[in-house]
């Protein structure tokens, strides 16, 4: 790996880390290399699910997560070198994603935002990536299918809470729901937390049943 292209040569924690800078030579820039495009696309496909998950620890709205990911990939493409491996690509994307997300939140003027320190954030990023790596595509599909069945078995009120949390602003928000059903917002968050735990247990149970069936 060339030192120029090594993302870790930039200082994590500084905004310059994900600045769009021209690092390629003129001659490299003049040619569109199909091999680069191919490798970039395959690495992007690999990183995308865990990056989306990582961003979900900063951003609540799916549209914002997608927009942020696209901005990240724009930057990564500019910096991308053919000799990058998965780790380079992931490190670069994750660090960049963190800054993009924080910038977005700042622009939105989110007052109550709290940010984990970079070291902790990077630790979580690493773990998200490595956990996402551990399951095969097939396992993932089965997992999602099990989750779908578990969600469909929920009661109406539980589904309403999920929709309010994940509906992307198209329906009622959690705040609106809390006021409609005369509950405090922290109570709804607590309920949401229990729902996730219950769903997670349900998925695990279904996966176990499937593997034995």
């Amino acid at each position: 790996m060339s030192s120029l292209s090594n993302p870790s040569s930039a200082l994590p924690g500084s905004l310059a880390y994900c600045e769009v800078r021209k690092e390629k030579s003129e001659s490299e820039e003049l040619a569109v290399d199909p091999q680069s495009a191919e490798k970039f696309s395959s690495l992007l496909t690999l990183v995308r699910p865990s990056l989306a998950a990582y961003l979900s620890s900063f951003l609540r709205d799916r549209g914002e997560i997608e927009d942020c990911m696209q901005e990240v990939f724009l930057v990564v493409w500019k910096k991308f070198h053919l000799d990058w491996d998965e780790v380079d690509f992931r490190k670069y994307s994750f660090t960049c994603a963190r800054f993009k997300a924080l910038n977005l939140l700042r622009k939105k003027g989110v007052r109550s935002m709290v940010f984990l320190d970079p070291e902790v954030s990077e630790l979580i990023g690493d773990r998200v990536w490595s956990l996402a790596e551990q399951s095969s595509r097939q396992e993932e599909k089965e997992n999602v299918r099990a989750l779908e069945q578990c969600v469909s078995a929920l009661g109406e009120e539980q589904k309403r809470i999920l929709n309010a949390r994940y509906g992307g602003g198209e329906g009622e928000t959690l705040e609106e729901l809390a006021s409609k059903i005369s509950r405090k917002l922290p109570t709804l968050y607590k309920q949401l937390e229990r729902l996730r735990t219950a769903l997670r247990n349900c998925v695990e149970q279904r996966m176990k049943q499937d593997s034995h069936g």
Partner: protein
Amino acid sequence: MADLSSPDSFPDDEVVGLVDGLIDGHLDEESQRRLEELLKSDSRLADYCAERILFNSKLADLVAPSRLELIQNRRLLIEGNGEDRRVVVGQSQMAQIGGRSGDLFLAGPEGKSRPSWWMSALPWSLAALFAVGAFFVWSFQNRPAPETVFPEQVSTRAAGATPWFRKPTSASETKYWLQNMAWHRFSLNEMKAATGLPKDEISSALEKYGIKDEAPTLKDDKLLVLPYPGGRHPRLGYQKHAVNPRRDTKISVFTPWDADGYVVLDVPEAINLDRFVYYLSHSDLPTFWSLQGYQLPPLEWERHEDGKLSYERHFPNGVSFGAEVTPGKSELRLQAWLRNESASELRNVNLQNCVLLGRAEGFSEQSMDNKVFKDGFAAARSADGQRWAIVSWGETARPWGISECPCIHSDPRIKVCHPGETVELRGWFSFYEGADLDAELERIKSVGWVGGL
């Protein structure tokens, strides 16, 4: 992986609350510091946190499908040269590189409405697509651009929406496809959905060619095998996981005991490489190609005199795959190959071969209770217990099924296909009437056809 799921052991309520507080964005500063402290002191917590974040992401994907549908249909395109090279994001998949503008459509034969967001993006899309099309055509071995557009945006979820259609290109093709669909017992509406022809035109063509509502005559007592015409979703259920099924790789095998019943074989439904999709015969997941803004052209089976069917699919980077289906009296001998003329190795190639059972009488039960998976074989039993549909792509293939479709699979895996190499595989599909499935599977094994070459 350590079991972190039990609320009785680890994590305790405080940890769950903190992690979910982070996910939901409502941690106050004090809680955040506490979480950081815990994360630094207990390595298990980082794993738990990551698991919870991943789970949350899956849940969000699932609960907001309408939003995701839009997102999944956005793609990453690379265009331009030199200083102007850039990635264009957020393009619609509805327009296609090299497609004729007259072929752009969004719904079935009568679907004229387009979502307004797409209309507003049209000039941008066309301009960007022109540039990207030029780039891909130039860079990927000057392969011809696809001729027909099959917009992946068309959702089968909309009531009455038509997934896609292909207009026959000549009188003989019209005759062939109408006969094909008549044997599938398609209604006029379904014929219209498959061909894009108006119903009155279809009616007069049926009359002109003397196509009647009658059972086909079998050639040499062989199983009747036809290219699947499209126009009718090949799945009974679970359709939202097969949006816009393309007919390209699909064939129908009619049951020998009932000329109205058939199963659909998708050879293959998908090709997966490591963790990304290289080919998919429907459009609900982004593929290696769609992410690059390249839409694969439609494909048709070549029909041979002796009833054999075959096709070859060429990707822009020099990788190609193909299949050949040879019908016998009660079985189909299947062959598939993957040729790698690209510069890179293809690793962990998984061919997802699907047998869709819903349209065969007695096999439409949406259950796993009537399915058997062993030694690379997947078999489905009819409701009366007397008949079986059996598929295998060799002992090492992964047999599985989905109750809701309903379908069975036998998915072979190619560990590696080196540049310049062609890997060939052989598969088997048959109907069996009898009660001793084990003996039948042994018999199939003894034929010695199934497996790698």
